């Protein structure tokens, strides 16, 4: 009885808040959703009594990993942290980026040239494998969520408030290529210089086949049901992996995994069999598809027909992995909570802790 009442309350507040959230949006508004009232109350109750921020030694959360070749790789994360490996991910050392903003995404095209993006319009670029990082100018001051370069010169960045940035000169100049509704775009993936997808909140998927000159809205919606007043929206998406002009994978909240084989005209939800949990990253390798998430690392070798959990040592049962990077054809590296780094071969069936994990 009481539970039901609480649930109803939360539901009602949610509707109200979502509405507000949609109309006057993050940051530039001081009217914040009430649905979080209960949450903050709860959070405060427990936080006041207990210290958090626990860290014996500092190991920052990692959100992205990218390899320039089989050996040279970079992982970026909280507080401007950048780790570098020269041995395919077995050992890592810190690199100095000169920023303390969260770096959300990193993209290398070879063993020298790479970019990293993050909070407050942070764009970093290196031409010497990360020995030195220099800042590039972003046309928008938002949290830049994803970056991908297809050549040394051409790349895209997706940001909060559905902005897509584009460069053709290695980032010397970044142009605002596309803008839409005020939602977060979480990730961008190109399978070649022309075809790519960008995905984000409420299931929004944008697609281009001309290198971003035009971006078309393929999926996702946010509105209120006229009958019930409830939110009607697509499932939040955290990551996308473009395999070829026809095929791409997306992952998101509640264990959501979908795949298109018709260039995004239709998306088929995949039945992975895992409990509802956050799935943060998807990577497609030669021999299958890998998904990282909250206490989860999944693999399918048959295009999604069957899914298998993989062996991970030490356990990620009480933590999360955010993204998986391909180290050429040799295998994979996954990164996540508190500097966790895991490594696997091309089969990706068995993962072992790397770095100081």
């Amino acid at each position, binding site marked *: 009885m009481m539970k039901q009442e609480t649930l109803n309350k*939360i539901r009602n507040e*949610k509707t109200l808040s*979502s509405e507000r959230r949609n109309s006057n949006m*993050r*940051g530039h*508004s*001081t009217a*914040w*959703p*009430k*649905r*979080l*009232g*209960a*949450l*903050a*109350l*709860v*959070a*405060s*109750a*427990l*936080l*006041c*009594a*207990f*210290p*958090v*921020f*626990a*860290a*014996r*030694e*500092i190991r920052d959360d990692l*959100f992205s990993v990218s390899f320039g070749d089989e050996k040279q790789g970079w992982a970026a994360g*909280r*507080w401007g942290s950048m780790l570098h490996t020269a041995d395919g991910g077995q050992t890592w050392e810190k690199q100095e980026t000169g920023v*303390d903003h*969260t770096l*959300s995404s990193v993209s290398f095209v070879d063993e020298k040239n790479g970019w990293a993006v993050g*909070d*407050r319009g942070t764009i970093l670029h290196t031409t010497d494998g990360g020995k030195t990082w220099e800042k590039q100018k972003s046309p928008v001051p938002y*949290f830049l*969520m994803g970056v991908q370069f297809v050549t040394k010169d051409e790349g895209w960045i997706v940001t909060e408030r559905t902005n897509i940035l584009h460069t053709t000169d290695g980032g010397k100049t970044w142009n605002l290529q596309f803008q839409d509704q005020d939602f977060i775009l979480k990730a961008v993936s190109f399978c070649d210089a022309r075809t790519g997808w960008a995905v984000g909140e409420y299931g929004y998927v944008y697609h281009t086949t001309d290198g971003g000159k035009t971006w078309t809205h393929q999926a996702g919606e946010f509105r209120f049901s006229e009958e019930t007043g409830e939110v009607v*929206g697509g*499932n*939040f998406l955290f990551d996308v992996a473009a395999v070829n002009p026809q095929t791409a994978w997306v992952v998101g*909240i*509640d264990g*959501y995994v979908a795949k298109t084989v018709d260039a995004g005209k239709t998306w088929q939800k995949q039945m992975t069999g895992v409990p*509802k949990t*956050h799935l*943060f990253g998807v990577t497609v390798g030669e021999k299958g598809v890998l998904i990282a998430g909250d*206490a989860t690392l999944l693999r399918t070798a048959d295009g999604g027909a069957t899914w298998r959990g993989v062996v991970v040592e030490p356990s990620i*049962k*009480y*933590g*999360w992995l*955010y993204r998986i990077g391909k180290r050429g054809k040799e295998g994979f590296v996954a990164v*996540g909570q508190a500097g966790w780094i895991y490594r696997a071969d091309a089969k990706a069936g068995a993962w072992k802790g790397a770095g100081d994990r």
Partner: protein
Amino acid sequence: METKSRFDRFCWFLAQHQIKVLALVLILTAVFGVGIFRIHTEVILSEMFPYDHPYLQLMGKFSQVFGGGGSGVVVAVKVKKGDIFNEKTLTKIKNMTSDVELWDEVYRVLTVSMASNHTKVVKTKGKGEITIESLMFPDVPRTPKEMELLKKNIFSNPAYNGSLISRDGTACLLVTECKENISYSRIFALLRGLEKKYSDENTSIHVVGFPMLMGWIYSLTPQMYMVFGISIFAIALVLWLIFDNFPGMISPLANAGILTIWGLGFIGFTGLNFSPLLYVLAFLVAARMIGNSHQIAYRYFEELDASKGDRKKASYETMRTMWVPNFAAVAADVAGFAVLFLAKIVLMLHLAIIMSFWMATILFTGLLVPLVCSLVPQEVTSKEWAKESCQLDWKARLMMRITHFSIGPRTRYITGALILLLTVFCVWETSKMKIGDPTPGSPVLYDNHPYNKDQAVLNKLFDASSENFVLYYEGSAGSVYEPVVLNTFEAFARHMAERLPDIYKSSTSILNMASIVNRTFHDGDMLWYQLPRDQEMLTGLLGYIRNTVDRGTLGRFMDSTLERAQITLYFADHTSGNLLRIRNAAYDFFKNRPMKIGNGQFHLAGGRIGMEIAVNEEMKRSHLLIDLAVYLGILVLCSLCYKSIVAGLMLTVPLILANSMAATYMSIRDIGLSINTLPIAAIGAGLGVDFAIYLYSRAMEEFPVQNGDWTATIMQSVCTCGKAVVYTGITVILPILTWYFFSDMKFQAEVGFFLSLIMAANVVLTLTLHPLMIYIFKPKFISQAFFDANNSSTIREIGATTELG
């Protein structure tokens, strides 16, 4: 009879009207006795810290905003085999939580465990739906699936993992905050009851926190009385063995009893607090009383023998002759306490007042003891008490042999060299003595005391700790919303964690809450588990939290006008070296960034660690000052008594050696100079000077008798007075030493040993160094009177021919 001074006349009057005087004394004692019932015996935290230190002023100011703390209790439930995730253990935790929540002594809302109703799990689902459920309330999980879910909810939550439940899952915490002005013995009984009720063969309960520590200390009070009893018995025994008569035994005890009542009554009337930690000091006073009484009773029996059993005359003579050395000795002790005034710590000021008075009452010993003795008819055998001649029993022979060795023509060089070597060693060791507490846990109790063991268990298993360090911000209204404030907090916590990875544990502030809300608001994306850097965003977030969270909860982190905020960092230990590291790391952080920002300013070093640093700094400042003041005081006093600077120097310098020996003990045993040890070290300085004073006084009397022969004077003085000194030493050392053997409180035991060591050192120096100094310097203040009365040239001749062979 020779012309009497005014003081002599007074003594004569007292000796004649013993009964009336005694009646007066008893009436006075009764009045003071009333005061005893007014004594407060509490441990008041605020009194132990330097009141005008900037850190303390900071604490005082901000604790009014954010609450004081210091009264938290942490209960850990630990299983020996397996983990806590079984129905039996979880049920225990649940029941314990509901038990504690019902106690009147604690704040119910601040009582938190994994089984509390307000320990929640927050989840974001697709389409932005948020669910909030209790972690484990009202029921414990029963199926393996439920159990697994509970584990996941705990271990994947940085707010719980390591803080509420140990990372290895073998222990969990129940945290509560006691109300102000509770009875520590009552909360102690409740907590002990909890321990008893819920521990079994596989479950242990560990409790720490200031109320618990105080409870343990109070629980040792009966033991203190027992130690007290034992030492009284020991003293009585020693007195009996020495005097072999009833008045000799009873008069020092009666005297000590009367003066103890005076002292306690005085404390009661002044209304000052008398901390149980310092009971041992009261004991020291009592021991000094016994010692002095003993010295005086000894003299009385000598005088009784000399006056052929005339008790009144003996009493008069004792009062008269013992006044000066007695005064000098007491004054030195009073000076030792009075200089505590120099420490800007309330407890020290109180001690200075209480103890100076108490010590000063010992002056009456010189009058009371002969009086009490003279009331009891007593025959003495002249052989034993002959004043002028030394009875050469084995004890006297041993002492004389020691002294003989010390001043012998060749051996004196050995003695000198040994003492010099000892001095160098001790001074070197003393320089290594640490300020503050060099050991983790509570320095008051032994390492193997349950409290310290519990503390160690908690330190090992959890990220929480009672050792906290606070960074404050204060600025114009609303300025807490400026991102630079909280961003600085965050960067500060990071900096400290990076700099001190071995002792940094965790931090707590509004940051954590802001990060969680920020993340939840962004679909549970881990990327947003951070503080917004954007002013608008942060303002919105904090404004939102402020509007939705109850003020009491939020009030710990920021005030309602948004002028002040704080972040608390937890560290693993409080040893003095680490305190310095923490302080230095904190100041280094602000080397690269301003403490003053646009609309406000950051303030460093609040919290328990700030307080401890403040105490240590005050100790460092006042310790040297106090020591110097004591020595100077004693130097002046002794110089005045003997009207000779040489006498002052000869009496003061060896004290420094005796004290550095005691300091060496502290250094070797790793006892730091703390609020507890500073008064001991200070009064220790004045202790034992009386031994030498008695020796010098006796030497002055002996010199004419021995016809100006220095060697004979020294040997005779040692033979007669030396024995009294050794006996007195024993009667003082023995009761103090009982604390070392019988007290479960490490602090008191250490203090007992420390004081005993100073006394013993002074006794030994009285038999060795002092005779040697007299022999070498042949000071005028001893010989003056004799030379004035005689032809000096003949005396010198005699002195030269009776060189020791």
